[in-house]
């Protein structure tokens, strides 16, 4: 995983490409992305860079969390995210990450975020299971069918689909195209949809593909 950027999902809209075709895009407003710490192999056992997503108020952080910022004379940031890198010495604590260094227009990115919570859902919505007829005297509508055989094996196999909580999970959508980068506004336009509700914090990472070379 290379260094990525934190941002907030704003919402979706449409733009037109060169040929006049409609492109569905998600608007992501990038955060401050301030380098808060550089982990080194000698000191921490691994090499990484810690990034603070958005500048926040002092009272929004706990005193121990605030202590770390005070020690390095940094503005309070939230949330903190670590990115593993080969060499962390090129990043300087206190400096913001530049969009231009990490992303280019046309690049493929992975976007991580927490998906929209759907609550307790049945197997039909949760796992796309089939359902029974809704009419013609049928009494089997949306409930589950069989969950396995009888005496043999005498138990329910692990991993059988059942109702339960759906959504509100960390999700990653891979290989989305960056349509446009607006550095003045600090906005990314990413083709397609991105996990989470509007206002959700998302992490945008360059994808590990041959097309990004």
């Amino acid at each position, binding site marked *: 995983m290379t260094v990525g950027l934190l941002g907030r999902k*704003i919402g979706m*809209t*449409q*733009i*037109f490409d060169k040929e*006049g075709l409609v492109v569905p895009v998600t*608007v992501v407003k990038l955060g401050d992305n301030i380098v808060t710490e550089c982990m080194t192999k000698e000191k921490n056992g691994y090499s990484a860079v810690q990034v603070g997503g958005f500048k926040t108020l002092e009272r929004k952080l706990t005193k121990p969390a605030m202590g770390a910022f005070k020690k390095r004379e940094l503005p309070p940031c939230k949330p903190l995210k670590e990115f593993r890198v080969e060499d962390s010495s090129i990043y300087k604590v206190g400096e913001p990450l530049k969009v231009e260094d990490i992303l280019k227009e046309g690049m493929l990115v992975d976007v991580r975020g927490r998906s929209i919570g759907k609550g307790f859902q049945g197997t039909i919505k949760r796992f796309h299971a089939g359902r029974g007829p809704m009419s013609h005297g049928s009494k089997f509508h949306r409930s589950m069918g069989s969950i396995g055989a009888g005496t043999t094996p005498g138990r329910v196999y692990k991993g059988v689909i059942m109702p339960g909580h759906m959504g509100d999970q960390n999700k990653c959508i891979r290989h989305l195209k960056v349509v446009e980068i607006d550095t003045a*506004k600090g*906005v990314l336009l990413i083709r397609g949809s991105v996990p989470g509700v*509007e206002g959700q914090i998302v992490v945008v990472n360059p994808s590990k593909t041959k097309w990004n070379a």
Partner: protein
Amino acid sequence: MNILIKEIQADRLKKNVPELNVGDTVKVFVKIKEGGKERTQGYEGVIIKRHGAGADQTMTVRRVFQGIGVERVFPLHSPRVEKISLVRRGDVRRSKIYYLRERTGKATRIKEKIGARLEQAAEVPAEANA
């Protein structure tokens, strides 16, 4: 709509889109590519549906061509749509006039809106948008 999204859309919006309503008869000039060449084609019909807001706006235009009903959806701010000119203002009571689909001949006529300012909206040239 979010303010930031509005900002992003702002410079992509066309300025020469006339005020369009359901029931209006319009002529849409669409750029089409044919064998490497680009040319403009007109398409005249009645707006039966308006959809969306801002840059996502579309309209559905219906016409009867060689006895077959044709409906085309145009994104209003698409660069492929060169110009939209108003032919006639219609007076309808519904926001979606799907009932035209079941009608033929004389029954498809739409009352003209009296006192509608037609010229003002139609006169703006396409070049003003650039």
